[in-house]
């Protein structure tokens, strides 16, 4: 306590001796900071998830069995495991349509609710030769083709490279693990199409419940459209040719999610702005009360030789200290919810969810801090100016 007197020290003493009032005022500012930081981080993470998905979806058009369009979207976005299939004949028919640059088949199988502590996962069989949608996610994971019995697992699957996992009564070796995608791939297990068909065949004898898919079936066909081609027209063609299918145009699917997000942002910023304005009003009212109640004290300071500027600085410092510390508290509180509960939030949202890089998060923290800190000085500005302009004698007489 015994150190040089300073404006900050005086401000901290004033705040500290009235803890209940300081806490109540601080709470409003803390809420602003928490909503600003937490809300923005949430929305930014969803946007990043979306961008990452858009960037690496690969296919322009997805062909699935009729009625399975929503199921496919769920598989892609949140990894809700499913099994569905259509006739394999669709593949060559689609490949022969005009405007089609590339096609690649995939097989989707939901694993059984097997051993303890595992939830069903999505098994995806893909064709390494023709695939163009999984490969971008593989990165440095595995450079050679997958042999039968080998699998690549998503980031959230409970295993590491070198482990063995059991599906449908058979053993598979983990040879690679994907990085976090924020999408359904995080809970997926990837194998070659041949491996998948082999697993399905052997499951008849080995598994509790067989897969029930033959090698004449597949779940979806990914189509890449010629540059300059029209995905909409192509999708109409496909449905005309094979009415037992549904076609998803990727750009529309992404658009749908993007629209949902875009609706969120103005809502969030609207809420934050409203809170900010409310806070200023509350703080301004209370600070004006506080300055009024301290008229004599302030007059006394002037009598002792405080300049107008010093008085102004004292009042502003006190309010800035209050909102500054509250901002820190609010951001801390928001962090304590957002970061540890990340997976829970992502799961509940059902949307792709990826954190921005640490640098951007740091910038966001700084911005939220500054915006909230400014609340104090802005709210007390009027009171500070009028106090510094009042004649010292008039202020001292206030108390009598």
């Amino acid at each position, binding site marked *: *306590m*015994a*150190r*040089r*007197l*300073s404006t900050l020290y*005086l401000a901290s*003493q*004033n705040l*500290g*001796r*009235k803890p209940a009032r300081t806490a109540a005022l601080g709470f409003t500012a803390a809420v602003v900071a928490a909503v600003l930081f937490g809300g923005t981080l949430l929305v930014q993470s969803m946007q990043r998830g979306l961008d990452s998905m858009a960037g690496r979806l690969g296919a322009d058009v997805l062909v699935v069995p009729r009625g399975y369009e929503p199921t496919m979207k769920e598989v892609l976005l949140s990894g809700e495991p499913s099994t569905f299939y259509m006739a394999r004949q669709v593949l060559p028919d689609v490949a022969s349509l005009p405007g089609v640059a590339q096609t690649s088949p995939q097989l989707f199988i939901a694993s059984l609710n097997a051993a303890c502590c595992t939830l069903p996962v999505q098994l995806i069989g893909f064709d390494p030769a023709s695939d163009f949608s999984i490969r971008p996610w593989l990165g440095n994971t595995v450079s050679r083709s997958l042999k039968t019995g080998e699998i690549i697992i998503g980031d959230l699957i409970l295993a590491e490279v070198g482990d063995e996992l059991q599906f449908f009564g058979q053993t598979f070796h983990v040879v690679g693990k994907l990085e976090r995608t924020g999408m359904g791939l995080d809970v997926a297990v990837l194998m070659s199409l041949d491996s998948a068909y082999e697993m399905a065949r052997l499951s008849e004898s080995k598994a509790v419940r067989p897969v029930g898919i033959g090698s004449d079936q597949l779940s979806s066909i990914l189509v890449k459209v010629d540059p300059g081609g029209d995905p909409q027209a192509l999708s109409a063609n496909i449905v005309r040719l094979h009415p037992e299918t549904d076609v998803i145009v990727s750009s529309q699917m992404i658009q749908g999610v993007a629209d949902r997000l875009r609706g969120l942002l103005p809502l969030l910023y609207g809420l934050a702005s409203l809170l900010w304005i409310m806070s200023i009003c509350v703080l301004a009212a209370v600070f004006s009360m506080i300055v009024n109640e301290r008229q*004599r*004290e302030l007059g*006394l*300071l*002037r*009598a*002792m*030789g*405080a*300049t*107008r*500027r*010093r008085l102004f600085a004292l009042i502003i410092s006190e309010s800035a200290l209050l909102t500054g510390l509250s901002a820190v508290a609010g951001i801390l509180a928001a962090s304590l919810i957002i970061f540890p509960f990340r997976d829970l939030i992502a799961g509940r949202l059902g949307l792709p969810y990826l954190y921005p890089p640490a640098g951007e998060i740091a910038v966001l923290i700084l911005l939220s801090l500054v915006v909230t800190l400014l609340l104090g000085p802005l709210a007390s500005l009027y009171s500070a100016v009028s106090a510094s302009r009042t*004649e*010292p*004698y*008039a202020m*001292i007489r206030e*108390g*009598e």
Partner: protein
Amino acid sequence: MTLVELKQVRKVYRQGANTVAAANGVDLVIQPGEFVSIVGRSGSGKTTLLNLIGGLVKPTSGQVFLQGIDLWTLNDSQLSAVRNGKVGFVFQFACLLPNLAILDNVRLPLFLGRGRGDGIDRARALLSEVGLSAREWAYPSQLSGGEQRRVAIARALMNEPDLLLADEPTGDLDEETEQEVLELLRRFNQAGAALVMVTHEPRIARLAGRVLTMSSGTLRSEAEARLTRATA
């Protein structure tokens, strides 16, 4: 050089349709080291006069000089420096900052004047002179009225002012504390600071070297005042 000089100082307040002259053409000269008391009933304008002397209120007309400088030709920064370094105030209601410990209250003038050092040694010495060194970490609310008054005196002396202004320093105090406070003030006056004390009790006023009376904004010497009353 005279310490304080007031030339035809008037201070007029407007209260609705009426105007009240708290000071009406006051002339006053105070020498360095003098002990002057100003007596008068409440509402006579004596407190206003004290604050005019200290440069806390601007006169409607007239001039206030401190060590030859016309106070109201100074800018805010210069005037604040004068209040900080040359004048010490002891107000009617002790007026300590309630959120600071006693020791911090006393060394406040040093901080406000941007003096060097932390002022702890001098503040402790002053507290010891007023007999409160044991309570240096107490807060004003934990002190009695008399003790607060003594701290206020210590604070007023922090920057070694040439002029000490005391407004009803013994108001609300019991007799014993009253004597302690007056003794302190007298001691500091004898050490060199000029003392101007405002009081409504003539018997306390008479302790001063010179007694002036204030009545309806007009300042007179005691002799003049008696004469005026006799002829009224």
